């Protein structure tokens, strides 16, 4: 099945919906499995024909599994630079797949919950994403997809070490469980460092919005397991699953504290952020994220009532460079993007304000 990326542009993907349990603080729950096909070397040592053969093998197998035939398959190396970044901004492919060389592809299901990356760091990376805090459902789906593919493909597997991966940091289960959290109050109250340190002690990693090496932008933090060997998939899932409610609780208490101690200052910070977003004539992607983070908290705390969390999530995604260019329908330089972004924000937010006024 072919996918029209322009059609995706107007839609909200799974993680932008602002739905699912605890979605005021938990943006998304994601699980990925790294797999390699037994008879090929790992990607770094693959020849061009090897890469093509891996791509074909996975694609052919996908066509044989009835439950997976509605996936849209795309050759990432044949996409434009903007389209590649567009898929990364929606978290359907990794930054590594954007920047890699040679034959590589992705298969995505229509609701953007499942994506299969072919020829990334490993031959196959299966990813399932759910809106809100829903790791149990994410595991059930990914385990089923893995079983379906495993009945058609022979994975590199070692009796003692488990699933073999290109990097020893993924060996064993090949599983990375991640939860994306929005923690602005912990940042303002300077408690985030404590959370960060205590998570490291129990072998959980904290990263920015786009994974390894990226900084936390807009107060988004991704928490994931670091260990992949020596524990079962369920144990790894539950380790992340059990710690998230504590962080949610900590963030909620920090928000309550801010409201009680300094509601005026907090309201001022949020209103100013909202004001800039509604009136700016030119604005960078980073500043937008920073301000949207404050507004998102304002919506959650009831200080802003004409927006929903789904609106904020949509604005986060739509104001990123590749999305903006797709929406505009043509390439834009940095200055052009900054004014287009401001225009998009002004239009969107004034429409919401108008809708709110009409309802009242």
């Amino acid at each position, binding site marked *: 099945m072919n996918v029209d990326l322009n059609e995706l542009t107007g839609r909200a993907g799974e993680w932008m919906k602002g739905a699912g349990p605890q979605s005021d603080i938990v943006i998304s729950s994601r699980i990925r499995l790294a797999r390699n096909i037994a008879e090929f070397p*790992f990607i770094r040592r693959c020849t061009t024909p090897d890469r093509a053969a891996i791509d074909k093998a996975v694609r052919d197998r996908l066509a044989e599994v009835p439950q997976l035939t509605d996936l849209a398959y795309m050759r990432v190396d044949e996409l434009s630079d903007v389209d590649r970044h567009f898929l990364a901004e929606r978290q359907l492919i990794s930054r590594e797949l954007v920047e890699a060389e040679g034959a590589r592809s992705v298969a995505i299901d229509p609701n953007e919950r499942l994506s299969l990356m072919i020829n990334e760091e490993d031959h196959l990376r299966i990813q399932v994403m759910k809106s809100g805090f829903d790791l149990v459902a994410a595991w059930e789906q990914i385990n089923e997809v893995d079983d379906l593919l495993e009945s058609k493909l022979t994975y590199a597997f070692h009796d*003692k070490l488990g699933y073999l991966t290109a990097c020893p940091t993924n060996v064993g289960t090949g*599983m990375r469980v991640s939860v994306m959290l929005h923690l602005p109050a912990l940042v303002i109250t300077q408690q985030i460092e404590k959370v960060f340190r205590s998570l490291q002690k129990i072998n959980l990693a904290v990263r920015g919005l786009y994974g390894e090496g990226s900084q936390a932008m807009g107060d988004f933090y991704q928490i994931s397991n670091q260990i992949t060997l020596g524990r079962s998939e369920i144990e790894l899932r539950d380790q992340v699953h059990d710690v998230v409610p504590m962080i949610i609780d900590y963030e909620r208490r920090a928000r309550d504290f801010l409201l009680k101690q300094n509601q005026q200052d907090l309201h001022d910070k949020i209103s100013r952020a909202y004001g800039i977003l509604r009136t700016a004539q030119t604005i960078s992607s980073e500043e937008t994220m920073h301000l949207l983070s404050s507004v998102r908290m304002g919506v959650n705390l009831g200080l802003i009532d004409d927006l929903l969390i789904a609106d904020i999530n949509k604005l986060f995604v739509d104001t990123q460079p590749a999305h903006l260019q797709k929406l505009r329908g043509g390439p834009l330089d940095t200055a052009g993007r900054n004014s287009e972004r401001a225009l998009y924000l002004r239009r969107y937010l004034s429409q919401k304000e108008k809708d709110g006024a009409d309802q009242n």
Partner: protein
Amino acid sequence: MKCQQCEKPATFHITELTGEQPQEIHLCEGCAQKYLMQTPGTGMPGKASLAGMLAQQLKVADTAKELEKLDEKCCPICGISFYEFRNQGRLGCPHDYVFFASELEPLIVNIHGDLLHKGKHPLTHKRSTESQTKLIQLRREMNEAIRLEQYERASELRDTIRNLEEGEEQAEDDHSV
């Protein structure tokens, strides 16, 4: 707000969490890029820190001469040298886990605290480590034969690969019956 490094407007706002107190840093796009290049990502070991971990591990266990010798050790299947792995943090083929086992095991214990997989196993299509290795080797030889335009040899190798794959599938089917 101006960038802390130059006169341009600051568009990148970073909360640095590595020190005692969270530190807010305000930079322009150019300076932010330089800054991010210098600061490795937090969290799990990436390419750079994996290489660092290996170097640290080896420093304790090996003298420079031994290390040099070890670096030259190459996997007979994919051809990757230990130096390449140490440098890039990525292995070349599944056989590397067997071939470099004595070097990798301390590293794996260091990362995961364990050496024994406790998760799921493939239910079907289970191939032995030896046969996985054999197939990669045959495929490599076939590619080499094609490169050298030795087409007769390449087609022999292709048949051997096919027989091996089909033989295993047959054995599996028999087993499942």
